[in-house]
């Protein structure tokens, strides 16, 4: 999604924009017809002027009032009025249809963008800045909006008028039409030269805007750090440079773009003067009559107007193409592949046999199809890693030959120095990333066979970075299980020891959290994230530094609750704090992507290895 401002294959992109507009073919055809009708009415109305004046007004000059025959004059005016009314009606109709269609199309483009975003693998978000993706929704969709609602109809309209008047001019005087053609060629060359130049500068302007916006975003996000370090002055200076650069690029781009209008307009005046002069000589030499020259001149005026109008659309179409390309690039990204076949179902036991059922029984099974048949394997939470090798980038292995097993009901902890690969392991279990070598099995089934959605439903995660939504506290917790009742939500909050502080919020559970929950302390946000996982009531729970900002007293209370909730189920815990991992059944010590020690707390302390070392920070001092 680079800022590929050059609309390579512009035609294809244009067609694709049109394809959004033409979801309703009938409407699109109707719009085109109405636009042609509306501009034809205008041309026809103007066409009536000449006969009305020549044939109905002029003959009656000097005729006494009583002798005048108004009826045919009135008839002509009525005909004109009818044509105009048709024109006005079709104008309104196409405006209305077009407005609806373009809004619908923009809505669909945004939906496609958003839906694609949900289906992209996590890896995509590692390599693309948020600001870049956001600009698809703001800048890029906006430029398309303009083209859809304005340019599309304007171009059809102008084309109709141009073709219509050109035909009329050819009929009137082919020799004078040559001048018009020459003018058109000059106009075309001017647009191409200036347009090409301004495209270059527009691209540079877009790049400069990108830089300024990026800088603003980064520095505003970190504004508190800026203040703590007294860095305001320096930041302002850097911004000044970027801002000035943008100003200069934008000045040139804008000058070039807006200069096209006066050039086009005045070129058409000059052409008019030329035609008048040449036409006058032709009249004197007798090759042209007065009436034809007069109408020809009239046509040449109505001919140049739409050309000028079209030249005005030129830039906005180019901008829209650039925007559309960025949007389509995102829509065309490869989605996360899921070729899993095994699904997760609720089961109950009938006569010692597992039977699939609809209601939530708190017992789950993997439904594994084999052709037409399927087997039900009870989901227990038995997770095993077999010689797993993984790296985020191809040549850089993060995890080497990991072998581990978590038996149902066990609490498995990962400890190790920062950057050892603890978070990575949990990201592999839920398939945020796919392993390079080896295999991971879940109740004996390779996780590659399990549908990703079902796999992730079976695991509740509390992530290292807590993210909350702009919603009420109640809805934020309910995110873990959309079917949870208010009572269940409150029970989960109590379990996470969050109930107390929630009740102290201005509107209790109905308090709306703002901007990623920034009106809460770091610890309180973590409590909510834990409540969210608890309400999911999952078969397997993964806690990644879930309690790092929570004081140990509160943590102990939560742990009690969690232990009760997760009895008989599997829990993975990542933490630095001993108090968090101490009562785990098995502790894995990771170092440089390898498990170097494993065992329970007592065994590991006795080994006096890395774990002992990690703990001694606390131990030496006690």
């Amino acid at each position: 999604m680079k800022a590929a401002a050059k609309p390579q294959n512009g035609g294809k992109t244009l067609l694709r924009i049109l394809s959004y507009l033409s979801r309703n073919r009938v409407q699109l055809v109707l719009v085109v017809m109405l636009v042609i009708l509306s501009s034809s009415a205008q041309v026809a109305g103007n066409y009536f002027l000449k006969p009305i004046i020549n044939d109905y007004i002029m003959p009656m000059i000097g005729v006494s009032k009583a002798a005048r025959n108004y009826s045919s004059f009135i008839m002509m005016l009525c005909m004109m009025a009818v044509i105009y009314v048709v024109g006005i009606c079709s104008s309104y109709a196409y405006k209305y249809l077009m407005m609806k269609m373009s809004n619908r199309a923009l809505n669909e483009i945004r939906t496609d963008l958003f839906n694609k975003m949900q289906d992209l693998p996590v890896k995509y978000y590692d390599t693309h800045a948020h600001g870049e993706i956001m600009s698809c929704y703001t800048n890029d969709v906006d430029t398309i909006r303009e083209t859809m609602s304005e340019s599309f109809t304007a171009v059809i309209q102008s084309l109709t008028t141009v073709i219509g008047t050109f035909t009329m001019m050819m009929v009137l005087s082919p020799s004078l039409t040559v001048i018009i053609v020459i003018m058109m060629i000059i106009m075309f060359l001017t647009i191409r030269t200036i347009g090409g130049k301004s495209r270059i500068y527009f691209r540079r302007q877009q790049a400069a805007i990108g830089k300024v916006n990026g800088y603003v975003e980064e520095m505003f996000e970190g504004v508190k750090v800026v203040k703590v370090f007294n860095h305001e002055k320096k930041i302002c200076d850097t911004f000044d440079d970027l801002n000035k650069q943008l100003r200069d690029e934008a000045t040139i781009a804008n000058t070039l773009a807006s200069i096209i209008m006066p050039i086009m307009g005045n070129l058409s005046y000059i052409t008019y003067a030329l035609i008048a002069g040449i036409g006058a000589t032709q009249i004197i030499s007798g090759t042209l009559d007065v009436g034809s020259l007069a109408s020809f001149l009239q046509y040449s005026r109505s001919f140049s107007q739409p050309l000028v109008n079209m030249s005005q659309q030129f830039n906005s179409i180019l901008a829209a193409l650039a925007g559309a390309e960025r949007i389509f690039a995102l829509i065309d990204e490869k989605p996360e592949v899921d070729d899993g076949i095994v699904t997760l179902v609720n089961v109950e036991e009938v006569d010692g046999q597992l039977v699939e059922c609809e209601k939530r029984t708190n017992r789950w099974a993997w439904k594994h199809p084999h052709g037409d048949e399927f087997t039900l394997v009870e989901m227990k939470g038995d997770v095993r890693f077999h010689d797993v090798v993984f790296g985020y980038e191809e040549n850089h292995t993060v995890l080497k030959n990991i072998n581990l097993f978590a038996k149902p009901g066990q609490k498995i902890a990962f400890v190790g120095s920062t950057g050892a690969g603890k978070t990575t392991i949990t990201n592999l279990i839920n398939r945020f990333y796919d392993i390079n070598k080896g295999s991971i099995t879940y109740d004996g089934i390779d996780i590659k066979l399990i549908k990703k959605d079902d796999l992730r439903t079976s695991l509740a995660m509390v992530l290292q970075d807590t993210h909350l939504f702009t919603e009420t506290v109640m809805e934020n917790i309910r995110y873990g299980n959309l079917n949870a009742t208010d009572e269940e939500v409150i029970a989960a909050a109590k379990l996470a020891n969050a109930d107390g502080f929630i009740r102290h919020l201005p509107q209790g559970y109905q308090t709306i959290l703002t901007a990623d929950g920034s009106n809460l302390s770091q610890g309180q946000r973590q409590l909510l994230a834990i409540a969210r996982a608890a309400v999911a009531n999952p078969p397997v729970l993964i806690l990644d530094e879930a309690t790092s900002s929570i004081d140990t007293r509160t943590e102990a209370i939560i742990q009690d609750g969690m232990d009760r909730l997760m009895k008989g189920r599997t829990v993975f815990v990542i933490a630095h704090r001993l108090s968090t991992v101490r009562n785990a059944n098995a502790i894995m010590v990771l170092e440089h992507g390898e498990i170097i020690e494993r065992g329970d707390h007592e065994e590991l302390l006795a080994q006096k290895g890395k774990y002992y070392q990690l703990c001694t920070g606390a131990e030496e001092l006690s």
Partner: protein
Amino acid sequence: MIKTLAKYLKGYEKYALACIFCVVIEAVLEIMIPFMMAKIVDVGITNRDLDYVIRVGLLMFGMSLVSLLAGAAGSYLSSKAGMGFGSQIRKALFDKIQDFSFSNIDKFSTASLITRATADTNNVQRMFLMLNKMAFRSPIMLVVAIAIAATINSQLVFIFLLIVPILGFALYFIIHKAFPLFEAMLKKYDGLNASVQENLTSIRVVKAFVRSKFEKIKFKTSNDALMEASIKAESFIIWNLPIMQFSTYLCIILILWFGGGMVMNQTMLTGELMSFITYVTQILMSLMMLSMLFVNCLISGASAERIVEVLNEEIDIVNSANAYKGPLSSGTIEFKNVSFKYKKESEDYVLKNINLSIQSGETIGIIGGTGSSKTTFVQLIPRLYDVSEGSVLVDNRDVREIDVVTLRDAVGMVLQKNVLFSGTIEENLRWGNENAAFEEIKEACIAACAHDFIMDFPDGYQTHLDQGGTNVSGGQKQRLCIARALIKKPKIIILDDSTSAVDTATDASIRKAFNETLSETTTLIIAQRISSVQDADRIIILNDGMIDDIGTHDELLSRNAIYQEVYNSQMKGVISE
């Protein structure tokens, strides 16, 4: 609002004025040229007067050239003025936000500040460009065209003098109806963008809970709402064209009828009738342009208001008139009867009646439950917020009487929610002190236990960090942030839960380094782990915004219930060893 924004045109007024001058020339010529055109047909060609045609033709040619030059100059001048204006507003916003206090920032939220400095500024800039070129052009064309039309035939002018008020009223009605709808639409638009942003930052949560369907439905709701709001607003605007066409066509027919009568009565010439119709079209076009301009102004008015709101925001932390600028000689801190709440209107205080004095060079640990206001407490020291009651003293001076730059230079603070910037590691570290020798940087990194992992990167100190430092792990980020604060060589250093993602052993060696190299520096450490604070000179127990107890590890262990409980919960397994 206009007054506030007009200031930022400074230095560019001459371009704006010159542009208006060019626009006026262009407009006048643009009206006169059709006049020439009519003359060529009516006089020259009808009379077969070639000389006349060539003379007027040449005149027209000259006028077109002048108009072209004026137009081209106008394009340049308006771009120069508009972009200059825009860039000065952008700069003013950026600078103003740098002056904001923490509570100013909290009030607006970062996301909304970003939108104001980017999208809203662009809107206002675009509006200015349009105004500069159109605001004079359309009225001038209108007036001149009416004047010329009146000289051609003073009676016929009344026809569209009758139409114009009707048209004006219709346009007013449209704008009046549409404006609130547009405002509503813009709000929906903001809402949509906010929800996309939120979805982006929380994408892992969405995926982990398999909520993509839920999110898609949620998005559809706000997307559809936006579409409906937009259709509602635009369905008024689309009346513009048919109404304009109606007035134009009505005028033409009326003029043909009445004008035709005049021609028949020989009180008007045929050519005059034709040019009259041309002028009518032109007048109505100008009106159309004016109404468009008006609609656009009203819509971007919303953006202008949002910008002015930031520019006029009162900054609540400013230097007092005779702020102390000299160096601070010690790192003593004193809290005198300090109470604090984030908003004036809230009832409950977050910190209540804090009295405390800390000696220079002391190491203070701070322990307390979740939400016990530990972070708030330390943020009062570098004056990130002002106390509501009482006073905070650093080096025996009230912090409100010390120059803010001097104060914050003397207080190094590692924030709980910390940020690294895109750039190399060294560039990031130099935030602490731009002129630091490389040796000093290295020392700070060794003290923060960051040197080793930095050297493990292929590019060492020149390793490039992504925005927000996303390419290093949580613990590595924290250590870089500590090193960055150490390079400042502050009198006071505050670590706000800054080692939560660092393992216990590394945490211990950081503290060891602190003890050795920072014995002169007052150190405040907020932590969850007892081990992080137990060797501090004194430990403060915060509970519900009040100091519950102060003492050494041993004292607290023997007498304080909260401390004992925290200690036991953490030390059980280790002690049994």
